[in-house]
């Protein structure tokens, strides 16, 4: 018989395993805000841009939605996180900006400083 703590630790290990299986260890992790406020500001379209980019062959990227971090007037927000680098947080990401982030940041590794929060 396993104890609750043992069970939960197993569950955690399995969860981590599943997340990794979905590509968490990719070089870049992209998080798109998908709360009511973010969606109101247009984040669904932004998410679509990143999905499309991955479908179109941008590799080594882990894409996830996230809740609202609380920076309302700069929404939609997108984070690009690379291990060993300072997480990059973009604000007011329109679909066009999202495409630029794909082109410049994800493909070329260029951090677009003027859109950073």
């Amino acid at each position: 018989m396993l104890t609750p703590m043992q069970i939960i630790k197993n569950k955690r290990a399995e969860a981590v395993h599943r997340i990794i299986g979905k590509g968490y260890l990719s070089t870049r992790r992209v998080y798109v805000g998908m709360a009511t406020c973010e969606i109101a500001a247009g984040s669904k379209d932004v998410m679509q841009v990143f999905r499309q980019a991955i479908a179109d062959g941008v590799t080594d990227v882990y894409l996830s939605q996230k809740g609202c971090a609380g920076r309302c007037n700069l929404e939609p927000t997108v984070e690009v996180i690379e291990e060993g680098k300072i997480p990059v947080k973009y604000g007011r990401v329109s679909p066009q900006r999202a495409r630029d982030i794909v082109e410049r940041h994800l493909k070329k590794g260029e951090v677009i400083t003027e859109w950073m929060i």
Partner: protein
Amino acid sequence: MTELAQDKMTTLREFMAEVAQREYSESYLIAVLHKAQELFGYLPREVMDVVAEGLEIPTAHIWGVATFYHYFNLEPIGRHVVSVCMGTACYVKGANRVLDALKRELAVEVGQTTDDRLFTLQEARCLGACGIAPVIMIDDKIYGELDSEKVIEIIRQHRRL
């Protein structure tokens, strides 16, 4: 009653029959009314009668509940529901002017539906999009950072749809 309405009524009855099995089934009244409104767009009297019988709740009680909660429409609503956020953030940023503009453009008061049944104007308490205040919601879409001119343009766009 049209066939479509019959179908909806059947769906509602099935939903109620499931709920009626549960403990404290009468406590699901609000859930059933939500379901009814989802199906019919508002709460017609015949539907409330059916709910009363289905859940064994006195009709007056249902009427009391339906009129208490502002979420429930007692009359048919327009094709588009325009909700003006009247939260504090929107108020401070001029929601009143947006509302006035809408009232004039649609020629209705809050809670009313335009004669062409295209728009129902409502006030919302807070749409939770305070960052882009003032906002309105048309159906499920939120429009932010409005003023009286922008909002009229949005309405005109919907008219053309």
